[in-house]
């Protein structure tokens, strides 16, 4: 069983703190590392794959330090975010080279198996430079899988993939997870993580914001106070009617904007309340827009809760 343990890890670059006192442990199965861009996901993956030293704390694989320990690569397969590979090689040559670098007893057979796993045999003779983003991603996957690792780390693996390739890769990762491998992938897209990972780790602004079952965290996200901007034919009367219901926590009459700022505490309740109240009072709703639906604000709510 392969477990990556991040223990009280911080990493700073000069004055910038990229990862701030994070502790987490990644075990078998598929784990999603979720967070907005710039949250420190790549930094964490670099720490876990031995390409960055922690400024404080330790990063270990089954107890063995990962930094400056090339032996861990017998267990770890890494799919980096950057696209560049050896563009002058064909897909086959590239994966074969990776198998040879691992010192595998039969590199040819390993390369063949890995390319079959990602279904890239049909294009394996083409030069990597001519591949599409999705194809490159799959060949990179094959190179990471060639030595049958127990840990697979993927940095934003779905970037640039079309829906079909996305589904294919998700199936593959699900299978690896079910086989008992430790699979960790990063993403800034909630839906991606939702489809693939039961267990997620959320990082926001370098901090570990949440950890655990996806559904629990999703519920936390939906149940957070939502803010809306509402414009209607009679704001003041609408405000009075809305505040009477338990689903709203506060309403502000923004006279400059000529709109209501509503804070709802019960997402489901409010979405049914608003049209009902308006209809009963004969008020026309002109605008309803969520004021804080950006992923960043969802995440920062998680951090504070």
């Amino acid at each position, binding site marked *: 069983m392969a477990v990556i343990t991040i223990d009280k890890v911080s990493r700073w*670059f000069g004055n910038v703190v*990229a990862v701030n006192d994070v502790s987490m442990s990644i075990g078998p199965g598929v784990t999603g590392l979720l967070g907005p*861009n*710039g*949250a*420190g*996901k*790549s*930094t964490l993956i*670099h720490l876990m*794959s*031995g*390409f*960055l*030293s922690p400024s404080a704390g330790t990063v270990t694989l089954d107890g063995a330090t990962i930094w*400056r320990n*090339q*032996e861990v*690569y*017998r267990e*770890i*397969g*890494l799919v*980096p*975010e*950057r696209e*560049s*590979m*050896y563009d*002058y*090689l064909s897909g086959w040559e590239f994966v074969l*080279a*990776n198998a*040879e*670098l*691992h*010192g595998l007893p039969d590199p040819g057979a390993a390369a063949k198996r890995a390319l079959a796993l990602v279904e890239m045999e049909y294009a394996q003779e083409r030069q990597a430079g001519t591949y599409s983003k999705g194809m490159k991603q799959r060949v990179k996957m094959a*190179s990471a899988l060639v030595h049958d690792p127990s840990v697979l780390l993927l*940095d934003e693996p779905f970037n640039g993939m079309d829906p079909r390739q996305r589904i294919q890769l998700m199936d593959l990762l699900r299978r690896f997870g079910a086989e008992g491998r430790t699979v960790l992938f990063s993403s800034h897209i909630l839906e991606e993580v939702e489809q693939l990972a039961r267990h997620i780790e959320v990082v926001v602004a370098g901090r570990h914001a949440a950890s655990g079952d996806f559904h629990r965290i999703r519920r936390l996200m939906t149940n957070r106070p939502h803010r809306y901007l509402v414009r209607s034919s009679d704001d003041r009367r609408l405000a009075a009617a809305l505040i009477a219901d338990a689903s709203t926590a506060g309403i502000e009459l923004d006279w400059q904007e000529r709109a209501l700022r509503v804070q709802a505490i019960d997402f489901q309740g409010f979405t049914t309340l608003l049209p009902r109240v308006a209809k009963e009072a004969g008020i026309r709703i002109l605008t309803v827009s969520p004021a804080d639906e950006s992923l960043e604000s969802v995440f920062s709510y998680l951090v504070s809760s």
Partner: protein
Amino acid sequence: MLQSPVQGTVARLTVRGLLGSRRGILLAVVPVLLLMMSAVAAATSGDKHDLTVTILGRLGLGTLVPLLGLVVGTGVIATEIDDGSIVYLLAKPLPRWRIVTTKLIVAVLTTWLFSAVPTLLGGLLLYGTRDGLAFALTLGTMVAGAAYSALFLLLGVASRNAVVIGLGYALIWESLIGNFVKGARTLSIQQWGLSVAKAVASSGSLTADVALGAAVPLLLVVTAAATVLASVKLAGLTLASED
């Protein structure tokens, strides 16, 4: 367990990366230039000894060899570090020093092929085997080429501005400052190469500013230290974070 300093796959990838691209054509400029100038000079009636020393010593060893060493030494590793493909070499259970020694050997052999071989041919064409001049300059080119390769490989690992720093060293320190300040020549790979060449050629046919007793240890120390340091640097290579 004793391991060979050359890892076959790393060597193969390095050679293809180095010679496969446009850089391969750039490298070929050096031997073409040396051979053409030697051929033209051989047909003139000038002093053949002076011409040989000027073309192969000054232009070759003095200017083209450091530039070639710079292109090759950084080319074997800095390109991969810049574009991030070095990840595929480093995410392997390979000792870092083997990656460095393999790349260094590829760099040295390439430098020799593109500078020492044309120096030998040009020297024989111009001056034959007289005074052992052709052989001496070839040997000087070889030792200097090896040291340049090691130094510039280290620069490629240690700095993102390897080419600029390397050019600064080769052109400003060795050529410009070395021309006016005699002391600067003591710390000049080019002068160490010349010193070795002088020791091999018949006396009086070449001049050098650094004594052989200093040049040889300095060449060895610089080459070895650069290799060790490059291995250490590579083992601690961190990838620039995208976020």
